[in-house]
């Protein structure tokens, strides 16, 4: 399988990464290099094999559904590029 330039633009949009027109041919080439590298996997017989979900078998632990760590809103927004009154600020989403 391989990708074309339209695929590259679609993937970039799904990944929320802006790409300039002149980057697209180069990305197409690099992604196809990676896809051809993984191509050999299609020849492996995986009939009846379970996909791995946990590399080291362990029982998922449960805990009480309570607040364990709460630094407060000032601390949480401290690293935000922009915030106001302890809220994260983003461009207008709803008209």
């Amino acid at each position, binding site marked *: *399988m391989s*990708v074309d330039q339209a*695929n*590259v633009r679609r*993937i*970039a*949009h*799904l*990944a*929320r*990464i*802006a*790409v300039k027109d002149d980057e697209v041919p180069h*990305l197409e080439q*690099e*992604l196809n*290099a*990676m*896809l051809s*590298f*993984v*191509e*050999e*996997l*299609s020849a*492996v017989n*995986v009939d009846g*094999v*379970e*996909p*791995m*979900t*946990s*590399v*080291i078998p*362990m029982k*998922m*632990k449960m*805990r009480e559904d309570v607040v364990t760590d709460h*630094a407060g809103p000032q*601390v949480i927004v*401290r*690293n*935000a*590029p*922009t915030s106001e009154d302890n809220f*994260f600020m*983003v*461009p*207008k*989403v709803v008209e």
Partner: protein
Amino acid sequence: MTHPTDLTLADAREALKSKKISAVELTRAHVDAIEKARGLNAYVAETPEQALAMAAASDAKLAKGEAGPLEGIPLGIKDLYATRGVHTQACSHILDNFKPDYESTVTSQLWRDGAVMLGKLNMDEFAMGSSNETSYYGPVASPWLPPNWTEDKARAALKGDKRGLLVPGGSSGGSASAVAARLCLGATASDTGGSIRQPAAFTGTVGIKPTYGRCSRWGMVAFASSLDQAGPIARTVRDCAIMLRSMAGHDPKDTTSVDAPVPDYEKAIGASIRGKKIGIPKEYRIDGMPAEIDRLWQQGIAWLKAAGAEIVEISLPHTKTALPAYYIVAPAEASSNLARYDGVRYGLRVPGRDISDMYEQTRAKGFGKEVRRRIMIGTYVLSAGYYDAYYVRAQKIRTLIKRDFENVYAQGVDAILTPATPSAAFGIGEKGSADPVEMYLNDVFTVTVNMAGLPGIAVPAGYTADGLPLGLQLIGRPFEEESLFSIAEVIEQAAGRVTLPKPWWN
């Protein structure tokens, strides 16, 4: 007396206990060395004031006889460990100015045990790379001189773009370079596909990736969560054992961390390996492997045999599939983990026409080329219509890779000996610019271990004809890191301690 920065971690611990040196003196010596070595670019943030304050506190504890296992030991911390109030960016532009209000579990355990933080170490951006060239903060130079280079030529290159100087490997390149250049007594590192073991091999240092779940991942910037694991890089096997004991342990904040007691790994050093069964996997004898790598491997086999180990040929039939399968699983998990960088809650923000454009512009500017490429391939293999063909198939292959190891361990094999890397260190600017896959091949011997969640250690074992260090890798059974320390120390003793390069970079 030996210069304080040339001490091993174990020797420094003794010198501190017997009051031959104070923690402040030891830290000061490292702070000075770091300042003079800025050309190597191993540290991206230095914390000398914090270091000296921590050292003074250690001296007080040492005086009262309340020293922890790492009391007064100066360490470097890879930039992907969250350190409260200190630069934590996984060497990415997108985490600009991020200073967490929390401490990773691994580093908090190091400080609990008395260690001193010297600063944050350079790395490939989000740990994606094998040469430390993808860092937003620029490449790291190895302290090893390129073959036939004079010190003058190397010093000139340090001031310029560093091209031609040797890479320290990656992604823990800052950690490996700092340990080899004596800019810390040991460093934290992390390993998703070989990022501890490959740089250790390239720099003549020792690095261990413990079993998945041995160390908490809480507070480590995530790359591929089912593969990532913390571990140390240090100058001796014993030093790694000392550090791992403090780094490991159960953490309720990471459900994948294992609730099992942490052994005193240092006790495994010097244990006899007589009767241990060491597997030699025939699939690791790859096409085009340099003769000197094969010679090193044969030498390692001979050393272990001489120490009383039993050598058996084994087969791990799915070895060849591990690297391609990794380049599906790791980017898939990365595309998901790195979705959080959106310019809203932390780090860089680039304004856009609307919120979606803001995300896209921020992520285009904030992520470097390699990271963008991996997010995109990860997005593709998880997208509708391709998920089964790529991702599910790769996870099935992962089951097969793990089964290969389980089969040989069921036959009584205690550990597996392989080369650590397919070559010695290469030059900065030399690889991967035309074809990203060229760089990925560095991890051909290490990546199987992550795919199967096993422990692996890289230990220096010899040199190329040009005098560059080469390492061997030992792969162990799950949670049997102690065996790895015992066997690795036999190799270390047989090979003789590495003579690290003199500080030409000052």
